């Protein structure tokens, strides 16, 4: 479904991604792990069009994304839920969610989608009128995920959804991600909770200093000596 080939990405003169190639199949749950500053978020941003690659190609189904703008990319059913929540702080939860369904198809089904999203996150339903900026961290994260789902995407990119969340909420988020996945959505996720994520995903890639150094099924990676050393603190 998503096919990335030989991607080079720069910030100004500094190269952060080197020759990245990977793919995600339809209805697959793929995880990207890597240390700080490895370039995971940059990769996500490149796919969703926030950052332009210098070389390489990104295909989603049969469209090429790499020269498109973010607001064009979302029309093809790709939704990026960014690191750090990025809500609209002075808009209500409901308005934030509505902003998630701007393209015509999603807009037509806005009512039903809202119901669905509220069933996933009952907490949000209680807070529809509250300004998003005053939600607690966990609620904000839920709101961000819910908003990303409002466009009824075929695939979601999730960047560190558990960052700064309590253990309990972290588990809740993971449960939700799995639930969404089981509903038939393709997922590409970045996580620092390596152990847990690798355990529930289909496949994983390890990113180091802007390069993909390992690839494999989640369980296999968990067993890998290098992964153990670098990420599991063993």
């Amino acid at each position, binding site marked *: 479904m998503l096919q990335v080939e030989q991607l080079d990405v720069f910030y100004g003169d500094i190269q952060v991604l080197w020759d990245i190639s990977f793919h995600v199949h339809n209805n697959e749950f793929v995880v990207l792990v890597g240390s*700080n500053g490895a370039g995971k978020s940059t990769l996500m941003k490149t796919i969703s069009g926030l950052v332009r690659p210098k070389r390489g190609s990104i295909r989603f189904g049969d469209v090429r994304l790499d020269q498109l703008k973010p607001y064009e990319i979302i029309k093809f059913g790709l939704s990026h839920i960014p690191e750090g929540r990025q809500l609209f702080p002075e808009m209500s939860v409901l308005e934030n969610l509505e902003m998630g369904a701007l393209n015509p198809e999603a807009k037509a089904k806005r009512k039903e989608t809202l119901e669905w999203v509220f069933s996933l996150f009952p907490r949000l339903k209680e807070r529809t009128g509250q300004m998003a900026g*005053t939600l*607690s*961290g*966990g609620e904000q994260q839920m709101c961000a995920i819910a908003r990303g789902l409002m466009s009824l995407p075929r695939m979601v990119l999730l960047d560190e959804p558990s960052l*700064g969340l309590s253990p309990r*909420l972290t588990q*809740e988020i993971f449960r939700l991600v799995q639930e969404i996945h089981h509903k038939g959505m393709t997922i590409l996720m970045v996580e620092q909770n390596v152990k847990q994520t690798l355990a529930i995903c289909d496949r994983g890639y390890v990113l180091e200093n802007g390069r993909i150094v390992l690839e494999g099924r989640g369980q296999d990676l968990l067993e890998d000596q290098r992964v153990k050393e670098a990420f599991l*603190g063993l």
Partner: protein
Amino acid sequence: MSTPFFESHELTKDFGGLRAVNGLSFHVNEGEIFGLIGPNGSGKTTVFNLIGGYYPITSGSLRFQGTTLNSLPTWKICKLGIGRTFQVMKPLRRMTVLENVMTAAFNRTDVIAESRKKALEVLEFCGLAHRKDMTAKGLPIGYRKRLEIARALATEPKLLLLDETMAGLTPQEQAEGVTLIRKIRDSGITIIIVEHIMRVIMSLCDRILCINYGQRIAEGSPQEVANHPAVIEAYLGKE
């Protein structure tokens, strides 16, 4: 009984209609690492902000080595010997790492040379010395978190407040962080730490306070707190 090193008494903070901190009392002994945990939005950062003098206290009081902190401005609190890091990092973006830390070191000296010396020591201590001439804005997250700590240390605090300095780090980096924090404590600095990563909290803290809705739900040794049913219910979740 002698006055505790740091004490919060019936601390309360309202934001409009929202009571973010609700009659919270606790104390911290000199030389210990005190963990503050709780679900998101339970008021941990708010407690830090109240200690740091960023918001006026609604009611209750904070005392540090016998001095009441209520209504002192932030910079005076720092002068008293309370250093802090920010959950949302605030590097001085266009200054170099060294300059960032020197600015903090001026807290105890007016002389350039001394502050530079102090700053270099701290950078060495935090493992940032090799990055000292980089501007802070170009620093990767892991180093930025260390810079936060280094800056707080350079003010020569007696009490250090660490707000989620491990979030977003890999387990490997977390382990390094834990070592660093231990080292800081061993140098005689008392620490209050907020963190969601239980492994870090459990291995570092002497005592832990768990709060929810700005109220205490449990306090005690790491083991006691981790097994407390209310904590599991509100915070840890069932494993």
